[in-house]
């Protein structure tokens, strides 16, 4: 339990939840060729409707995935932005990882409800249940993987713009405690695939993560 004390646990848990899931949870998709029959193009369905439920179904259809990312982090305390690169992994059923290779090695992982970090900011492991507001965020983001739009919308105010070929999802936390830290997450992509995850913190710091394929 002492290792859990190593960082202000609440913030870290939220950070981990957001970063591990916002990135890897929705990162990439199986190639269309590998998709089962009847779920061909990640495009407009028979009714031609592109809505949150449809988007989530597309994302949820993915299995194990692994994608490289480049990320630019804007931190007020630093003169220059930080450019990071690394890999996002989702290992079914419940392990999500964000592995940063440079400028400093760091591993963020969510396994079940255990969150862990090992990098320049320290090393810690904690249970999401210890941090209810972070747990809510995780539940919300996990809902994306599960295609559960009801839970997603319980945790976030979710606004979807654009169409299947170029969608933009804006997620604003509903929990005021989470809002004190995180103002919004913007995700854009095509079909079941993500291109860009932008995370804005309430104090103005932000990160822009581009997912490569």
């Amino acid at each position: 339990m002492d290792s859990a004390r190593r960082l202000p646990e609440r913030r870290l848990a939220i950070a981990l939840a957001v970063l591990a899931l916002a990135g890897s949870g929705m990162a990439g998709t199986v190639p269309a060729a590998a998709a089962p029959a009847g779920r061909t193009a990640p495009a407009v369905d028979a009714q031609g409707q592109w809505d949150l439920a449809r988007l989530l179904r597309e994302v949820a259809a993915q299995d194990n995935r692994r994608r490289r990312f480049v990320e630019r982090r804007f931190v007020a305390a630093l003169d220059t932005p930080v450019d990071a690169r690394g890999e996002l992994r989702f290992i079914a059923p419940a392990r999500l990882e964000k592995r940063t290779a440079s400028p400093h090695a760091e591993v963020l992982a969510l396994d079940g409800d255990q969150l862990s970090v090992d990098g320049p900011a320290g090393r810690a492991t904690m249970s999401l249940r210890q941090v209810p507001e972070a747990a809510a965020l995780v539940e919300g983001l996990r809902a994306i993987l599960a295609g559960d739009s009801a839970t997603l919308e319980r945790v976030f105010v979710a606004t979807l713009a654009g169409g299947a070929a170029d969608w933009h999802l804006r997620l604003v936390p509903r929990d005021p405690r989470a809002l004190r830290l995180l103002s919004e997450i913007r995700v854009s992509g095509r079909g079941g695939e993500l291109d860009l995850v932008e995370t804005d913190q309430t104090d103005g710091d932000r990160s822009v993560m581009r997912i490569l394929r």
Partner: protein
Amino acid sequence: MTRAAAAAYGSRRAILAAWLVLLGVCAVIIAHTPFPTDMSVFLPQRPTPRQQLLVDHLAHGVASRLLLVSIDAVPAERRADFSRALAGALRRDGHFRSIVNGELEALRADQALLFERRYQLSPGVSAERFEVPALHAALERTVAALGSSAGLFGKEWLLRDPTGETLRLLDALRADQAPRLHDGVWVSADGEHVMLLLETAAPGTDLDGQEAALQVLEHGFRQVREELGVPAAMMRVSGPARFAVESREAIRGDVARLSVLGIGLIFGLLGWAFRSLRALALALVPIGSAVAVATAAVALGFGSVHGLTLAFGTTLIGESVDYALYHLVRMASPEPVPARAFWATIRLGVLTSVAGFVALLFSGFPGLAQLSVFSIAGLLTAVTVTRFVLPVLTPAGWHPRDLGPLDARLARLLSAARRLRRPAAVLVAVALAVAVSRHGHLWDDDIASLNPVSKAAQQLDEELRAALGAPDARLMVVIAAETQATALQGAEQVGAALREQVRQGRLGGFESPADLLPPPALQRARQAALPDADALRRRLQAAAQGLPLRLASLEPFVADVQAARARAPLTLADLEGTQLGVRVRSMLSTHGGRTTAVIALRAAPGVPLDPDALARSLPAPEGASVAVVDLKAETDRLYAGYLREAVALSLAGAAAVVALLALALRSAAAVLEVCLPLAGAVVLVVAGFAATGHALNLLHLVGLLLVVAIGSNYSLFMHGLRRGVLSRVPSSGTLASLALADATTMTGFGVLAFSGVPLLAALGTTVGAGCALALVLSALWIGPRAGAAAEGSRRGGAG
């Protein structure tokens, strides 16, 4: 009314008035007497300084408030919920000072405190740490952390503590073995049991408060079990509070149960013998007076009467009724024993009993000293009341039923049993051989044999302690000083020496309160090492050369360092409400103007700890005394001391009894005659325990002394009967009264054998069996001769 009658009437009134006043005074004293049931009775009355340290720590430290809890048979997925719900319920209640179950919720106060006071508490704070080179390295790490994924969110914290003192602090504070976490709450190593550590608000000496806390815990547990729908869930609780409350229950239950049982059985016996309510009422007079005066006497002598002493009171009932019994039998007899001879024998009997108890008066074991005062006061009161008050209360012309027929039956029995004289002697010889052959294994020299806590409860305590990672506090360094600051200073100096031992591999580790709460001087030294705001800003500017860090963002750090310079040293009071506070309080206790700091030691694997060598290697801090204490060895020494003392006192008591007999009987042969049955009874009892595999403890030994002291009454009477001192006519009922007296004494002690408190049970078994054997052997070996017995039976039959 004649003048003589008037004078007699006047003196009767005076006696009654004096008796009633005495009872009234006793009632007032008893009404103001506390009846503790705690462990105080086991603690030494005249402790050595080292024992005093132990006593202070055990009786007043936080250890006496801790409760260890294990919740069992909860399905894996409900364990965390159960722990959280129970902890939540207990936190809402005021009976607990701290509830620790691994939840971070409970650590919030600690985190805030550690962060705020990091520059006073962190062992890393030094002047070099705030020079440019060290600051540069710190800022490099900070930049890397700020740019990381996790740092993006922890940056405020990183910027306020770029030198990482909080991390270092948390590393230093990490408990050696914290329990495993499952879903964020503590579980046992196998993950099956939910573990909690509670500290009651009530101190260890407030048993009512602790009992209330235990009830709140039980109630909360049942409620949570119901709410979560896990009816199979079970709770196991251990800790000094639990033991204390339970032994109080056991002792209270015993006092009530055994008193009722003892009185019931004794009165059943008397009722059967006399068939008269009036006789019973009269017998009650010395009993009641004896118990009242005995209790008041202990209260006056010790300030309180321990529950165990009171439970022991049942034996006094059995003994004090003896004198009433002799009196009633004598009254009933058509040819009573002459008053002078009768009271002379009684007096000698009382004196020998008292002699045995007087020896115990000098015991350093408070339990025995109380017991001794209780019995002496009780016996003297019983005999005095029988002698002076009972005749006044007995209506003129009333005679109890003559026990002559019973006497005659006993005489016949005795006559028939005389054939067993030699077999009995052989049996005693065999028993002596058994006892001698096993003399190495007769005694149980483990203090655990006195522990009122059951073996099962002790095992549970060990299990829960291991699961909760509570340190094995067998070996410790104890530092005592006038003030908390001096004690901590001493602990700090000792800790430095111990660290060196650990470095050399001679010691596995240690836990010192000074590492958790540094002494004020050390805190001040750290504060003095902090640069002022301008100096720090200049150094930061130099240190940040070449780093992409905005200096303005480090202003919170500069402000924190500034604030830390002016803070008053952190004290134990500041730790209120934190887990850190619980840990420090468990190692630091203040009592009676002295503070005791305890450093628990852990041996290195395969390296046995030598307390004496360790003690020599430790410094002698100014104003503090340092002692290396081996708890097990110390308690063993304490018990060995009690045992040694008890042996000496018992021998002295037995010698006093023999001396009294010699003084009264004025014949070596007579003394030998009187003593032989007593020795035989002692040998038989010892051999009996040895043969049934029971090791004897201190209370058995005391019991043997009482066998001699009380049993001497019976052998004296038997001896008197045989010599014709007591009666020229055997049908005086003496034999019957002896048998009845022995039966009541045996009953009084015998019921103790059924006590749930091991101490009382040991005493009860020994004295109950021993007194019965003393009477039987007296009757066989030195009882009236066959011819006299036969004559007695004829007379009895005719009467």
